[in-house]
């Protein structure tokens, strides 16, 4: 059964071309001569800065809230666990614009939580930097939770049990035994979550809008510049592409080193 099958090869070629061609086209159209000038422009710098802040904050939120959640999903058995798990992972497949609408209805000025936030504390979330962080965090956190949960679930309990019989308390067990052993899963999950937060578009534009310097992230800037200065859009796009390549390569290198 080792014979070459021409048909399979042909279809495979079509497949890889379909995936590679757009990327090649993008790289080919980047005005390398204007690269430095465009990246130095205040619009590009501002979008880069907003994206960095928003995506890193969203990542921190995902890790801080997602680690205990993943632990509970992996280690505790309770009624409704599978329903809650489905809910927690749903944003991974939810159309981002739906996520944006849902965030508006929760945290918007008339949202079920948002109206009280405004009435009681005068806090208005939509179309602020916070909104951009919430949008990115909402779509990114499930990627972290899913990877962290897999890590916790695959770690044999014997290590923690052995540590407990050595008189080591809960927190030290987690920090010195569990964390180092699931670090690769957490790192991979964080990389995926960060990449997803960085690329967030639909939920952000719906819930946080497109305010330059506040909520205008790189993807929004790319979309906007396509109308005004296509070459600037290509440059910003290729920056995002480069980051994606690095995240994927990094995750692979990490996976191999295990």
């Amino acid at each position: 059964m080792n014979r070459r099958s021409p048909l399979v090869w042909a279809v495979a070629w079509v497949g890889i071309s379909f995936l590679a061609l757009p990327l090649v086209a993008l790289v080919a159209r980047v005005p390398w001569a204007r690269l430095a000038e465009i990246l130095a422009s205040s619009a590009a710098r501002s979008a880069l800065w907003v994206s960095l802040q928003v995506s890193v904050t969203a990542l921190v939120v995902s890790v801080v809230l997602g680690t205990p959640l993943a632990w509970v999903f992996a280690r505790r058995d309770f009624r409704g666990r599978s329903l809650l798990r489905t809910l927690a992972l749903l944003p991974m497949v939810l159309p981002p614009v739906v996520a944006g609408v849902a965030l508006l209805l929760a945290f918007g000025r008339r949202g079920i939580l948002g109206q009280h936030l405004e009435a009681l504390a005068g806090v208005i979330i939509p179309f602020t930097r916070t909104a951009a962080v919430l949008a990115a965090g909402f779509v990114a956190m499930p990627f972290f939770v899913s990877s962290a949960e897999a890590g916790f679930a695959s770690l044999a309990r014997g290590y923690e049990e052995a540590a407990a019989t050595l008189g080591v308390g809960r927190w030290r067990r987690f920090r010195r035994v569990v964390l180092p052993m699931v670090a690769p899963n957490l790192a991979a999950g964080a990389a995926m979550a960060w990449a997803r937060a960085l690329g967030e578009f639909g939920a952000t534009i719906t819930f946080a809008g497109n305010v330059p310097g506040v909520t205008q992230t790189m993807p929004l800037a790319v979309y906007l510049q396509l109308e005004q200065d296509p070459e600037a859009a290509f440059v910003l796009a290729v920056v995002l592409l480069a980051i994606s390549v690095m995240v994927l390569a990094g995750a692979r290198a990490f996976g191999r080193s295990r």
Partner: protein
Amino acid sequence: MSLSVDVAVRRPGFDLEATFEVASGQVVAVAGPNGAGKTTLLRAITGLERVERGRVVVGDITVFDSSAGIDLETERRGVGMVFQGYWLFPHMTVAENVAFAARGPAGRWIEGLGLGDLADRYPSELSGGEAQRAALARALAAAPRALLLDEPLAALDVETRRQVRSELARHLAAVDVPVVLVTHDPLDAALLADWMLILENGRVTHSGTLTEVTRRPRTPWAARLAGVNLYRGEGIGKGIVIEGVMLAVPEPVDGPALAAIAPSAVALHEERPAGSPRNVWRGEVVGIEPAGSRLRVSVRGDLDIVAEVTTEAAETLRLRESAEVWVAVKASEIETYPA
């Protein structure tokens, strides 16, 4: 310091009840068939297994008492355990594993268990015997007030086993806290422990010194462990009736009784032996297997029995499968005791 255990564990389709005491420096071996609840018993003492009812006292601290509502967390019980799979932390070296657990300087334990040369190795770079020693060092470094070992030698191959067993015996002799070790190997029990507990189907079926347990086994499993023939019968004075066969015994026995016969006390003959032995019956050889320098011969007859004979005797008797033989057991060789 001592360890006092009285626990009842209930799980769907399985329950365990055991009560025993271990003095400081004493080593108790818990033996029993697979699924008897040996590991569950150890886990119940450490608090890793939920105990329904009972009381566990370690030294002068009650770590579990269902009637008083006491249930200390595993890490606060002071009960060390060496697991069958060791569970050495793979991201720490041997020295780090020991130091992680150590109360006080770890060097003493690393040197004490001869791990000096292995201190900087990771668990994946250790042989089975070395890993076992590292796990023991780590458990001892935590200064437990009782030590449990779950099948400490089961993961080792036969050669390593012999060497590690004597090492372990040396180390355990130096431990001055109560020690409970689970094993299914009578040799482990004989060389490592001074008291034995047979656990079958979630119940302690026998406990005593190794000699007591092996000379007078109470269950078929214990008899296999001890390598003796065990019969259950009815004592009628100078004899015992087993499956309709009357055996003469040395001591008068009445009522339900057990009779243990060592295979080496069973003689096989080609012809019906004349003279002294009063317990004689005819049988058919159904199996022959080597046991050390001798042969264990299974004979089916009025009473099924296993005899142990020298190879010379086997040749003289021309023993082979389905050969007819006469079985003779001297009354004085039969150990009888109340069932």
